């Protein structure tokens, strides 16, 4: 998936004018309510969220030990574990496996990490046809679009457009805009492919160190087919998906499902410990687990950024974000959208390529309050801004424009020097208040765009609070 993060503003403008996207985004509030009420059957919902956060934090703190333990347990159960340094490495391993076994097509369960790694493109380039099988992913694959939402990737798309592409690609022959009939057409089309499937590919929601088990959560059953019908199963995880014990995994399942869709549990949760046993008639006789780094160990080396690895991809932060709620998922320009994307994408793609992601945040903290994994998104985004200004070499900070740098330094100097501040304020009052309208400053140094384009800067007071206080303190 080719990043479009540099087009953030352009896409956001388009999306804000898109009626269909707006209609769906307005519904998000209802889903957020459902999500909240799903927690109410815990004796103490806040304690449940806190526990889930603590599990994720402890897991990330012990990451290398847990990964080693997981590798050992999974291998003992008969799985083959492959460590991939980056996307290319992981893709090459999977492509090689498919070519060696003469596989003509594979089916994939929904997996964000393969969106990140561009696995579909790598397979197709080598003549192995990849089929996405989650309905939403299937639709956006045909339309060649990025996901609109990490849980509902095609939820904004007009049924007419789905009907047209289904006919064009031979999924069905008679036009319909009924969502149920469209879903049924996709079922029939993919069912034949599931039947004869030889290699299934899935992501991993959680990997349990203690037992060597991998866990997938879904509603449709496509992931179960990918793990039941073929003889070869490949499951790929980014390296932070590991949790210490089955008991903790079971608890995080509860918060993951509640925070994702407001369900107590997804329709299907499947947990694999090794490949099928000899006496079993279905299931894979080969289970390959790919552990992908792709920049995570670099993130881990930064003690403050490490927290981003706690994310469990539930999407609760998207549904509650006032910015996401206006602009939708396309604007974020890559696999990960909303606050979790704003936190993670700059670390994977570089701060220089993703500037709009971490500046387009009001730091309102709603994301942090609903996060069941303990991410403090605003703190991470502020750190991105800091690292960008400091030209951080590890995460490719490119520094500020000379004008911004001078402005900020000037501000810092004035703010730290009371006499300078007072005279600066007097000068600013004279200069800026003249360009005001209705108590709001419309222009600074002859410019009305940039910072002022989306913010209201009130006029400088006369007297300022400082002046008033000096006069009245006695």
């Amino acid at each position, binding site marked *: 998936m080719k990043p479009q993060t540099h087009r953030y503003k352009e896409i956001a403008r388009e999306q804000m004018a898109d009626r269909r996207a707006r209609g769906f985004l307005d*519904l998000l509030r209802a889903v957020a309510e459902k999500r909240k009420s799903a927690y109410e*059957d*815990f*004796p103490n919902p806040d*304690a449940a969220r*806190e*526990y889930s956060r*603590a599990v994720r*934090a402890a897991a990330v*703190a012990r*990451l*290398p030990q847990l*990964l080693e333990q997981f*590798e050992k347990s999974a291998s003992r*159960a008969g799985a083959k574990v492959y*460590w*991939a*340094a980056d996307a290319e*490495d992981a893709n090459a391993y999977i492509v090689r496996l498919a070519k060696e076994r003469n596989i003509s097509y594979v089916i994939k369960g929904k997996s964000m990490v393969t969106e990140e790694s561009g696995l579909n493109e790598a397979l197709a380039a080598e003549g192995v046809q990849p089929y996405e099988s989650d*309905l939403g992913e299937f639709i956006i694959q045909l339309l060649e679009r990025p996901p609109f939402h990490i849980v*509902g990737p*095609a*939820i904004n798309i007009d*049924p007419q457009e789905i009907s047209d592409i289904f006919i064009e690609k031979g999924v069905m022959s008679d036009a319909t805009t009924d*969502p*149920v009939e469209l*879903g049924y057409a996709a*079922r029939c089309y993919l069912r034949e492919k599931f*039947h004869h499937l030889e290699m299934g590919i899935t992501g991993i929601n959680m990997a349990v160190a203690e037992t060597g*088990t991998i866990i997938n959560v879904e*509603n*449709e*059953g*496509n992931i*179960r*087919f990918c793990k*039941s*019908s073929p*003889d070869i199963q490949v499951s790929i995880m980014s390296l932070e998906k590991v949790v210490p014990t089955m*008991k903790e995994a079971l608890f995080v399942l509860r918060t993951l499902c509640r925070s994702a869709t407001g369900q*107590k*549990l997804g*329709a*299907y*949760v*499947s*947990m694999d*410990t090794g490949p*099928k*046993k000899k*006496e*079993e*008639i*279905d*299931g894979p006789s080969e289970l390959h687990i790919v552990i992908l*780094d792709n920049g995570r160990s670099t993130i*881990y*080396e930064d*003690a403050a950024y*490490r927290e981003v690895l706690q994310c469990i991809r539930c999407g609760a932060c998207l549904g509650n974000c006032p910015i996401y709620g206006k602009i939708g998922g396309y604007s974020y320009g890559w696999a990960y959208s909303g606050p979790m994307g704003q936190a993670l994408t700059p670390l994977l793609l570089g701060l220089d390529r993703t500037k709009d992601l971490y500046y387009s945040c009001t730091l309102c903290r709603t994301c942090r309050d609903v996060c069941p994994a303990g991410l403090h998104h605003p703190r991470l985004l502020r750190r991105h801004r800091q690292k960008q200004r400091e030209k951080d070499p590890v995460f490719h900070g490119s520094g500020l424009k000379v004008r911004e740098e001078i402005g900020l330094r000037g501000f810092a100097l004035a703010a730290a020097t009371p006499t300078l501040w007072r005279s600066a304020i007097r000068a600013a009052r004279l200069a800026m208040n003249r360009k005001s309208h209705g108590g709001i400053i419309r222009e600074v140094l002859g410019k009305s765009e940039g910072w002022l384009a989306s913010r209201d800067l009130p006029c400088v007071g006369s007297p300022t609070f400082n002046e008033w206080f000096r006069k009245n303190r006695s």
Partner: protein
Amino acid sequence: MSNSTRDHILSRLYKAQSTARPFIEPEHCPEPTENIAGELLVDRFKALIEAQGSCFERASGNDGVLKVLADVFNRKGISRAMASTDRFISALDLPGWAKQKGFAITTQKDYEDRTAFKRAVFTEVDAGITGADFGFAESGTLCLMANGDMPRLTSLAPIIHIAVLPSSRLISSYEQMAETVFGETPPSQLILITGPSMTGDIQATPFKGMHGPRELIVILKDD
């Protein structure tokens, strides 16, 4: 080279750990239904099964289960079904029962290999019948463990899934199961089923039977 990659990744992670921030050890958090037992468990389980759009039946003994099955077969127009051979289902002798009733029921053991079994389960049968190793009242969930007698596809490929759960196997929460199941030899796959296959991916319109069963019928068997 995966081995050197592995060592490289792990050594970076271990080295970075020295800069770890302190964290709080997770303490026990009570599960949603920790203190429920007996008929309260059944009530909650039934309510949640029905809320998902699944069908809940209760039967007494094997004869009761067969009676419910006959009724379901007639109501849904099922003539061919695939049954698992786990202990709860094999006790019913479904192939023999079906012959008497004029239905056809096969099991995975009637097929010589995966290909033949897959053909039958994907294209020939109207329903899959399996036992369930556990039921969880906290979310209205069934738990199936894949093994030689419990194929994965029997509960997945047919459009209707009928599951028989002995009431003694109905427990409140997942953790009670995990302690016994994930010991020395965990199953190759453990499946939790909470309602029929579903999606809301087009316009958030619910659609049951997206890839797996459109209907889930749970028969709770009292002994």
